[in-house]
């Protein structure tokens, strides 16, 4: 639940999602759900030449199970808040 809540707060931010098939997609975080499925808007592929089929795709739904990383802007993260939330979650709260 922690990361679901965390991503909900990040809606509207620019992120880069790197998938397990090495595809990296940059876009605005539109929504997230309990499975950490991600919907991105205004997407563009990082290495466009390697993935020509994605050219006309501007919005996409990414299945949570295929995500390797979600790259965030460094100033978009409140590390202390996240730290506290993790400690609370670990305590069983």
């Amino acid at each position, binding site marked *: 639940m922690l990361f679901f809540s965390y991503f909900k707060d990040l809606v509207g931010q620019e992120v880069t999602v790197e998938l397990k098939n090495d595809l990296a997609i940059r876009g605005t975080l539109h929504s997230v759900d309990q499975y950490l499925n991600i919907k991105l808007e205004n997407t563009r592929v990082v290495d466009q030449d390697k993935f020509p089929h994605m050219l006309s*795709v501007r919005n996409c739904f990414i299945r949570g199970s*295929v995500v390797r990383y979600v790259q965030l802007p460094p100033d978009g993260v409140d590390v202390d808040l996240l730290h506290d939330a993790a400690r609370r979650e670990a305590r069983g709260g």
Partner: protein
Amino acid sequence: MSWAGPEDIYLSTSLASYLDRKILVLLRDGRKLMGTLRSFDQFANAVLEGACERVIVGDQYCDIPLGLYVIRGENVVLIGEMDTEREELPPHMVRVSETEIKRAQKVEREASELRGTMRKRMEFLDFD
């Protein structure tokens, strides 16, 4: 995938916003399917009408028609909404026939298999 009420549809990860639109589905085995999304569920299972597989080898591509498809959600990597006002592919790409693309696929597959066996031989000999 969350089941959204009618007012949540604009904020949720529901695939409802892609219904009856042209979509691109990337599968775990690397295949790219295109078609009109007619149905979906919480597992990202999807029904694609007028589906075709877009096979790309280098600068060549071919769309192989498949008909009505039901895709099991566990194979889905990504579902993208294709903007019909934009170019689907870069202009330098050439459309070829199905036999031509299958031949190109075979060549590419044999080349990567050869690279694989060469690498295995080198690893066995402990070369770096």
